[in-house]
């Protein structure tokens, strides 16, 4: 995969937990344009170990001089967000992938309903810049915990005008999904990004209310789960790789110099899918890509987030 060499040109504290980072190409050239909802994967060198996290590009999509991302410092972080918050300063050099869009708007939707929870607001920042430019009808519903966590509220008020609605948890104003969904015209598409519980309940609600699957879009990047160490045996390249407890299978493969495919690194897109030829234990699936039937049949795995309780797994790679 081709990578872009960038340098950090600005770091801004947005809320107590959220920092915004601005990247420009190291050689001063133009970055690729991108579509609303795109993300990049940022590679970080943490004590000699390459760590990769996906972050949404915030736009505006018309800007090819710089990219901005926002990172929330995660209490249970495996190191990525803490590294971004504590080590990355203006002048820091990083490598990022070109933009990939796994959360694109459907251009034929009659109306776009955007639902964000907390730091899940980030992919919508660039989507809104596209929706405004294209003149498509939309509304944004943004929930956050308390007034001091209202990242980008002023900016959104300016961008969206009366199309944005805020829900502040500790002020007792919560989003009512039933009410939100029931009033939408036929042909609307809904997009949700936020904490798991929010995404899951909205997706479930939409399904129960008869929304077509294709009209419900969600983005929920999962962090790789930790677990017990095991050995992956690669049948095609005839190598064995040890997966330590605190590393994902994908990370361990990369660490061993194996060029394994990936895109979202969050168990959502399916690009890193591997065929499991043999496993002397149990696969532990954490992805949202494989169907329940596929998970039970235990012959496929998403190494970016999933792992196994076993001593040895054989995959076709």
């Amino acid at each position: 995969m081709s990578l872009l060499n960038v340098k950090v040109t600005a770091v801004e504290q947005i809320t107590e937990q959220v920092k915004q980072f601005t990247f420009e190409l190291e050689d001063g050239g133009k970055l690729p344009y991108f579509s609303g909802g795109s993300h990049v994967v940022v590679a970080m060198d943490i004590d000699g170990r390459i760590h990769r996290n996906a972050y949404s590009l915030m736009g505006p999509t018309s800007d090819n001089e710089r990219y901005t991302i926002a990172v929330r410092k995660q209490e249970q972080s495996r190191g990525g967000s803490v590294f971004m918050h504590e080590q990355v300063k203006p002048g820091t050099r990083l490598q990022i992938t070109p933009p990939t869009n796994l959360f694109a708007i459907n251009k034929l939707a009659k109306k776009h309903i955007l639902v964000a929870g907390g730091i899940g607001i980030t992919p919508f920042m660039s989507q809104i810049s596209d929706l405004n430019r294209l003149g498509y009808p939309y509304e944004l519903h943004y929930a956050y915990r308390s007034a001091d966590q209202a990242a980008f509220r002023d900016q959104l008020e300016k961008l969206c005008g009366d199309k944005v609605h805020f829900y502040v948890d500790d002020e007792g104003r919560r989003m009512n999904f039933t009410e939100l969904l029931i009033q939408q015209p036929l042909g609307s598409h809904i997009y949700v990004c936020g904490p798991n519980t929010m995404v899951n309940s909205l997706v479930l609600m939409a399904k129960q209310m008869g929304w077509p699957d294709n009209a419900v879009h969600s983005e929920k990047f999962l962090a790789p789960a930790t677990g017990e160490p095991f050995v992956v045996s690669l049948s095609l390249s005839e190598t064995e790789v040890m997966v330590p407890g605190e590393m994902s299978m994908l990370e361990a493969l990369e660490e061993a110099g194996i060029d394994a495919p990936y895109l979202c690194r969050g168990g959502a897109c399916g690009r890193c899918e591997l065929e499991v030829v043999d496993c002397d234990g149990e696969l532990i699936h954490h992805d949202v890509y494989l169907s329940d039937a596929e998970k039970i049949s235990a012959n496929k795995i998403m190494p970016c987030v999933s792992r196994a309780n076993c001593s040895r797994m054989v995959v076709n790679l």
Partner: protein
Amino acid sequence: MNMAFKQETLRDDYTFSNSPESVRRFPFPFDEDEYMYSVNIEPHDAGPPGSVFEHAIDIDEHYLTECEERRIVLEDDHGRYVALPHMMDAQWDMVELVMTNLAKDYPESFQLTQDGDNWHWVNQPLGIDQKFVFGDTSTLPMEPFEFISRQVQGDWVIMDQRDEDLFADLGIVTGQADWSMAFDAGMSFKEWHAPVPHAPEMGIFDRALKYLLHLQYGSPVRRTNWRMCVNPRLDTSSEKWHLWGPDNVSVTAENVAEKVYLRVELQALFRLPRSNAIAFSIRTYMVSLEDLAKYPRWIKRLYRVLTSLHPDLAEYKGLNSYLPYVLNWLKPQDDGEVLPKGTQPE
């Protein structure tokens, strides 16, 4: 590479011909003695200088010929150009893709100056000098994609990505191998591939679609496809079958070598940045059997592929009415030599 642009015809008197360099760089599609479909997709990386893979978009000695052919086809039938309204971002993506690549790779013929959104495009072979504002359709004489696609070789279909599928929602298709853009417009990936025999049950399209949905910006891919045709006619569209179909029975033992062409499509796929659409380019190269025979390795391999071809594929590729003449002509040229794997001419 010979960059003197020829002015030939691809219809009526068929003055089209390939120079020796043009034959040598022909993207011969068979690396083995047998052919069956596969998801033969590889990175569209820069190939050796002079090869058709040297640049992302190949311009060759037939540039003027093919642009003129496109003009003639569009004048007769503008339905070969299809642009659904939600594809305007993709139209501009295409302007950027074609102009930046041609200006970078063929600076003696094409020049692009960009000052923010103020662009200045010079196409010397076609005598076009156009200043315009990127993103403002009113500053071009026609829709952006039509404007630029009239200045590049090959057919282009731009696919919108939604509902975990790809839809043929924008395209210019004037030199196709027996299909119709007007018929396929708006269709999903599997819908427009439905006529291909055996490939669906082999899972080819499931795998290809899954792969393409994840195609990344900056990492284009390519594959080749092939068929044969009688006379160097690019416009073998379904719409014009009444004009070219009867040629299939004009082949005789005497004229087969000069009249029958191996026709190869170099298909490249690019993820487009603003629209998240995928550009699918279908660049056709045609070489007569007579010219192909300059390279014994190619002619022997072609004979072996055609003798072992599944009858359904021969029919789908439209070869049935003249295949016996082709085989009779090729047969004496195959001495049975074992050919190592690969598509190279020598």
